[in-house]
């Protein structure tokens, strides 16, 4: 299928992602922040789709937007919001924050400018997957080439999960 209005959708989705990100940090109400974060995540999923990575997009939606954010909202609703609403949003360390932001921004710009001079540094290392069997290719990579890494990652997550349960639970 031929892509339609690619540029338009790119700017739309990027704009939405940025807008959501800004809203997340500026909203006083934690629930509004969470909803804005969901907007960002969905826009990112759209960007993944445009990169011919439908599987990643699907996982992004099902895990982040559908799973994790629901749990976020769950927790936010349970805890007392009145106090957090009264708190100062931007605290005293804004100087350091600004410096960090500027430095990171310069870094991004530098990479963008220099990437043309560093031939194929990025492009070579991004696996080019065919759109039709993209999911299948991921499966082959994940369970073939990178099997060991994948298992280690899952083990780490298991450890983290058990640790979280042990820490959160008062008595077992």
């Amino acid at each position, binding site marked *: 299928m031929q892509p339609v209005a690619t540029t338009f959708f790119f700017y739309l989705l990027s704009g939405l992602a940025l807008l959501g990100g800004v809203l997340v940090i500026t909203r006083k109400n934690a629930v509004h922040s969470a909803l804005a974060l969901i907007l960002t995540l969905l826009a990112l999923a759209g960007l993944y789709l445009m990169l011919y990575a439908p599987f990643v997009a699907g996982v992004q939606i099902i895990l982040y937007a559908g799973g994790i954010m629901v749990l976020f909202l769950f927790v936010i609703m*349970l*805890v*007392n919001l009145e*106090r957090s609403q009264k708190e100062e949003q931007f605290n005293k360390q804004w100087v350091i924050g600004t410096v960090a932001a500027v430095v990171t921004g310069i870094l991004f710009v530098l990479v963008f400018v220099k990437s043309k001079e560093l031939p194929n540094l990025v492009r070579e290392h991004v696996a080019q997957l065919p759109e039709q069997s993209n999911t299948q290719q991921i499966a082959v990579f994940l369970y073939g080439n990178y099997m060991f890494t994948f298992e280690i990652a899952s083990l780490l997550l298991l450890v983290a999960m058990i640790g979280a349960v042990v820490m959160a639970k008062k008595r077992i």
Partner: protein
Amino acid sequence: MKPTTYISRLELGEKDETFLDSNELIINMGPQHPATHGVLRVILKLDGEKVLGTECVIGYLHRGVEKIAENRTYAMFNPYVDRMDYVAAVSNGLGYCEAVEKLLNVEAPPRANYIRVILAELNRIASHQLWLGTHALDIGAITPLFYTFRDREEILKIFEKYCGARLTTHAFRIGGCQYETYEGFEKDVKKFLNFFKPKIDEYEELLTTNRIWVERTKSVGVISGKECRALGVTGPVLRASGVRWDIRKAQPYAAYSDFQFEIPTGQNGDTYDRYLVRMAEMRQSVRIIEQAVAGIPEGPIMAKIPKVLKPPVGEIYHSIEAPKGELGYFVVSDGSTQPYRLRVRPPSFVNLQALDMMVRGQLVADVIAVIGTLDIVLGEVDR
């Protein structure tokens, strides 16, 4: 002046200020709520879904029945008692008539007593049917309600044929019964019994072994026999806790001493046992009615009482086994035509008091189940 607001003792508790534990929620259930069976208001203090405490706010249906009694003659007050427990109006009337008869020192003739027993037991079945339907509806099973209403209709038809009213029957008079049984009354009752016996099995088929029903009711709202006695809880709730006590047996009134029947009891005192006890009680009621219809004596239906009732000065307490528990009437006479004081000891009112004890530490859904299983009628709670 500001309107007065109800201050619940639950709202006065210390506010928890910790960050993650501050999820205590005060919820106001009712007075308009689908599961409170009328205008009961329950204030719930919740920790998530767990109930930390409850407080009942009642009185929304308070009509001052006891005050009305002091301003009516004995006979005039008779229809008012039907409006208390309106799903078991016959039992209310029975208790009141017997209390005044005791005060007058007269006794209803045997035939009247048999008619009273038949109607009161039919009413017990009707009351339990209504309880079953609404209780199941509260727990989420919507179908039994229609089944029980379909069958309850047959009882109401018999009432209508007997005394012209279906719900607030005013079937009895002080000293006996006003009406002789109509032509074919016994046939109708027998027909109903034959129709009804398989229906109990039908209800039980729907619920008794239903996994979800058992899970929802087993070990929910547990109350022990000792706690029942301390809290004054009577009726099926007490019997489900293993106390074999029924006024029909303990202190027989009307014609109950003539009949063979058993007092069904439970062991665990949970909602499931109360359900089983009430189902068994319906079967026992069928048994009593069968005997009563078979052995109904001929004779007058009204004792010889004066036209104007003037009981001698004195006090009397008389109680009967209403479908909900011990229904008592305490009547004080000053020798005039009106009661000097009439106190109703309503079973629902006293049983409702056990709600708080029964639901502490359980979940919101259990509150609904327990309100249902206590079988309260707000007309009687508030009077």
